């Protein structure tokens, strides 16, 4: 009966109800859209990182610290037998990393030189270009678009590459840009060049050595210590850094979330306060007919909850096709989005999970109910005689 009466009251309130419902439905759709974008961004970044950098995890030389270039001098060694076996069977790709300097058009850039097998299929990098023959003794080099933009290099350009070998001796060679690749993952692009692994081993005097080996995605995690003293960093270890970054970035989106929700709740709260003020006589009548105060409070709270339910229904009517379209077409990212700090594509595709929709709906309904209930506490102090006279106690 309460539900029926509440529904009738809402429908009877006409435009006021529909305005609230529309505001709430907008909050639903916008919250889900924004959260979907963040989820999509996160998902895209993870997938891109897995495909181009992380794979199924890395076996790393114990001295290697990717965040400390000074460790590179010592961070290389022969692959442990289990890792070498994986590399031999094509389930892993060895990478040797050393510091170097390039001099495109006479300018100097300190970079990392990464050596990788041109025939590898583990990472989504066009390393096959490294196998193309070059003129004379030139080193074929693969660079990303960001480095290309920074240095002004393009495919076919030559420049001087300098490095230190295993004995600490500086050496230099001419290098040619075999290909400029585009990637959303900055950590395989900015400040680094990719060269053939065997060539780098020759250049550095580190035959058969590597800094780390990328395991193919989907390969079962090795037993701890199985490749000692090399350390295995799992895919989750890498992604946890990214997720921490995403979490930090989502604080901003949470503010948007709270603003949308607060605006919708303000509308509900305002309506409830106005309702309680305007409908005192009706409350008195209900009490005279046998309603307890608790039942009147329940009626008004159910009315508020129904705003949320109607808002969800209306949001579903126009939000489902709208968000489906959005998920298909994505959102074109503005130029300069690279500065955001992690892999974002040219077009961002939101990901709307059932959990996101259900969670948002549940949260909005709970908050709506609470916001609807708060003003009704005044009814608890309402005397039926005052209510019948149109007064608030």
């Amino acid at each position: 009966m309460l539900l029926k009466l509440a529904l009738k009251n809402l429908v009877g309130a006409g435009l006021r109800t529909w305005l609230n419902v529309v505001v709430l439905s907008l909050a639903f759709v916008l919250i889900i859209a924004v959260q979907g974008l963040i989820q999509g961004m996160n998902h895209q970044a993870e997938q891109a990182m897995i495909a181009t950098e992380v794979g199924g995890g890395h076996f790393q030389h114990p001295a290697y610290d990717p965040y400390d270039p000074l460790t590179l001098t010592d961070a290389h060694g022969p692959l442990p037998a289990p890792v070498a076996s994986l590399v031999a069977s094509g389930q892993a790709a060895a990478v040797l990393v050393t510091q170097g300097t390039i001099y495109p058009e006479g300018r100097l850039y300190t970079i990392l030189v990464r050596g990788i097998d041109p025939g590898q299929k583990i990472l989504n990098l066009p390393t096959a270009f490294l196998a193309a023959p070059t003129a004379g003794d030139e080193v074929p080099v693969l660079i990303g678009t960001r480095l290309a933009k920074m240095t002004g290099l393009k495919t076919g350009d030559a420049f001087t590459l300098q490095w230190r070998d295993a004995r600490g001796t500086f050496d230099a060679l001419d290098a040619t840009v075999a290909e400029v690749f585009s990637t959303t993952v900055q950590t395989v692009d900015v400040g680094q060049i990719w060269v053939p692994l065997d060539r780098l081993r020759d250049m550095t005097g580190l035959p058969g050595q590597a800094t780390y080996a990328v395991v193919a995605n989907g390969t079962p995690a090795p037993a701890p210590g199985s490749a000692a003293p090399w350390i295995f960093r799992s895919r989750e270890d890498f992604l946890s850094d990214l997720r921490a970054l995403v979490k930090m970035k989502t604080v901003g989106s949470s503010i948007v979330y709270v603003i949308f929700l607060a605006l919708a709740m303000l509308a509900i709260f305002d309506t409830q306060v106005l309702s309680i003020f305007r409908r005192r006589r009706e409350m008195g009548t209900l009490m005279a007919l046998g309603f307890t105060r608790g039942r009147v409070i329940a009626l008004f709270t159910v009315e508020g909850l129904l705003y949320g339910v109607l808002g969800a229904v209306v949001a579903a009517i126009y939000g489902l096709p709208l968000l489906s379209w959005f998920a298909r077409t994505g959102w074109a990212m503005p130029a300069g989005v690279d500065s955001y700090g992690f892999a974002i594509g040219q077009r961002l595709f939101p990901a709307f999970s059932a959990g996101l929709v259900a969670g948002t709906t549940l949260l909005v309904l709970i908050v709506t109910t609470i916001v609807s209930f708060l003003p009704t506490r005044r009814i608890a102090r309402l005397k039926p005689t005052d209510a019948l006279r149109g007064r608030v106690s």
Partner: protein
Amino acid sequence: MNESPLIVTRDLTKVYPMGQNPITALDRVSLSFAPGEFAGLVGPSGSGKTTLLNIIGSLDVPSEGSALVMGRRIETLSHREAARLRNRHIGFIFQTFNLLPVYSVYENVEFALLLLGDPPAARRRKVLAALEWVRLADRAKSRPSQLSGGESQRVAIARAVVKRPELVLADEPTANLDAENSHNILQTMEDLNRELGTTFLFATHDAKVIEHLRRKITLVDGRVTADEELGPAVRAGQVGPASVPGGRR
């Protein structure tokens, strides 16, 4: 009157604390009403009529004294018990009709039965019968906003009597009605009183209502100044009332 009384008030006092000068709305009112009475509380504005009606209707509680309504002591009832008493045993009719605006005429009348938990078939039968009594069966689907004042009050009467309460409390039921509608309303209530045995207690200062009363209790400044039985001739204005000074106590 050999029947046990439906309502008994003893030294009923109601004081409203208004800062330094509390207002005494009722001052030691002692009255008794038997089942089936058609009685009215009359007096000028502020004489305590509505306050007494509200206490009898368990919408308010006395400051002192006691009110026994259908065997229940009003001053000791919890909110829930008071709501239950109103729900099951008392019908209310208000000056401003107080119909629920979003409900149809039928639904307004049905509302009282919904609270009682009557099954749908029984509800329908009782609602249609109540609407027949007040001659509004043809307006069952109308909304309160589509009714005249007289029709609205008849709906309120149907709502008050549909659950067959022992007691109907009517606060200035004709104040917003013209003479013809007032007469029709009162005639309807008299018929219901006669046919169903429902006790009607009015708060009024409307002469049109007083003409229909069988008992008139005059309140002045919260005190009972007269309690009179009115015979048919008196109600027709032919002879003076059979006055019972001090009322039935």
